[in-house]
């Protein structure tokens, strides 16, 4: 967990975020982006034990781009209008907060986690659902290999040419 990339920072504390789509992907764990729409399980685990003793509230909202929602300055009705799931403030003794939700359409979402008796610690984690990201890594790798071969071919030909006595052809 020390180099955990799926880590949420809530004030001075840390949580681990994991998403699952058991029907589509078995027990494969996703971090920031859920690959497809459908039934999804999200689990947040307390890394710091202090989080087990303070109430935690969770909301899943649509990412509308409204900054007031992220900054916590939005009013209740504004927040409720984009809230898709709400877990009221509660103490989680086992340190885990499991959520099951059926994402019916692809898009960008945000998880808002509020912790503390007065809700003094807040964390925001954006994630996407069903948005495919093209990975260019494999193409870059293949192009690199081909370029390497071409470079070697050119260099070898030039070196051979230089080593021949002058006047020799072919």
């Amino acid at each position, binding site marked *: *967990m*020390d180099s955990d990339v799926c880590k949420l920072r809530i004030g001075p504390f840390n949580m*681990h975020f*994991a998403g*699952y789509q*058991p029907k589509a992907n*078995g*027990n494969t764990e996703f971090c920031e982006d859920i690959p497809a729409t459908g*039934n999804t*399980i999200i*689990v947040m*685990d*307390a*890394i710091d*034990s202090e989080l*087990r003793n303070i109430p935690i509230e969770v909301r899943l909202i*649509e990412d509308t781009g409204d900054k007031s929602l992220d900054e916590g300055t939005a009013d209740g009705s504004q927040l*409720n*209008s984009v*809230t*898709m*799931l*709400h*877990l*009221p403030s*509660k103490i989680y*003794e*086992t*340190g*885990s*907060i*499991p*959520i*099951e*939700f*059926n994402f*019916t*359409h692809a898009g960008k979402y945000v998880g808002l986690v509020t912790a503390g008796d007065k809700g003094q610690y807040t964390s925001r984690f954006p994630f996407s659902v069903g948005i495919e990201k093209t990975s260019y890594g494999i193409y870059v790798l293949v192009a690199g290999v081909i370029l390497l071969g071409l470079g070697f071919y050119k260099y070898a030909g030039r070196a051979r040419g230089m080593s021949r006595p002058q006047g020799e052809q072919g």
Partner: protein
Amino acid sequence: MRRLVNRWLVCLFTASGLFTASSLLTASGLVAAFVPLPVAAHGERATEPYIRTRTVHWYDVTWSSGSIAANDEITVAGKFRLFSDWPDAASLPDLVFLSNGSPGAVLTRVESYISGIPARQSARGLKTGKDYTFKLVMKGRVPGKWHLHPVLNVHGAGAIVGPGAWVEVTGKQSDYKEPLTTMTGVKIDDLQTYGVARAQMWHFGYGVLALLWLLWWLRRPLIIPRWLVTQKGREDLLITSTDDKVAAALLVTVLLVVIIGYKQTVEEFPNVVPLQAGFVKVPVPPNVPEAASIEVKNAEYDVPGRSLRMDVVITNNTDRPIRVGEFMTAQLRFINKDLPAAVESIDPSFPKDLLAGAGLKVGSDSPIAPGESRSTTLDATDAAWEVERLVSFLSNVDSRVGGLVFFYNDQGERHMSEISGAVVPVFTQLGSKVSTKAPEILNARVD
């Protein structure tokens, strides 16, 4: 001319590239060496779960103090069980070495014992299915707060780390001393600095010789001119008779330094003990009949619930009624909080982060009568399964889990049994309402 310029440019770029790379490496090395970086722990979570859950189970581990002054001692003591269901992928503990896990020499190990036998060397003769006591005596050296674990290094399986507790070393590092009197009566004030000046003298001396040798050649025209000379078949121009003389003088100097240095060292230290490479043999503990046998009928790990659920049949082989008090695996302790004797077994020095918050839920928790076989369930739920990175046993080729179960009888006596079995992942339905972009707030049900 143009070709020559091109070659020089290639040389320049290559040299600058190498210089940059080496500079970066050197800089990062210097940063690592001289800038103190915070260390949270040291990788015990990186060990494969099948190693942590099915090889060495540490229990009754205590730390004599949570804070010591530099040069004061702390004792880490306890027991370990070498698990019977040892994984095939790890070598058996035929050759082991007991040590400590801490971030560098912030504490020094001054004594170590396995079953009361000094374990400063590697040990042989340990058997799976047996319990051994251990003791480590450590001395505070560098002030700070350090995570201190016992570690059993198993040849062929690697370091198997026990539970870790934070230990604070106070005072100044200069307070730390390690005096020693050798067998021949030589008094050494501090082992930390003993012989360091001598080692530095030898390193520096050889460094100077190497530098002079390099400079001798570097003062000449370098790569391209020498390459051109070799292309023209005139290698004879590259090495002069003066070079031959310098090389011969350096050879003689180095050999004389080695011979005279060896003679002087032997005269100064006539009695030396070679580095010890032997091992100690630890006697096999007597067989102890298992107080309760446990048969795992079914075991599943609920992924979203972070819960290991086992259906078991427990047979009480003792002559007194017993109850399940604790399930322990990979240093994690799931305590049955309904059993006072189990709760009282937690030593105050034991790390709180290794105690599962919700404890152990036992399906049928009433006392199991002598000779009775009871079908029940054990439910060990906690985020620690994920946080401690223990769930990759689900993707191993050998998806098994193991641990120790502690029982207590009506007189508070404790008994211990092993538990192990195949485990499968499951996803329980949490039962939350399904939203189709619902504008209203939905309260999901959470287990």
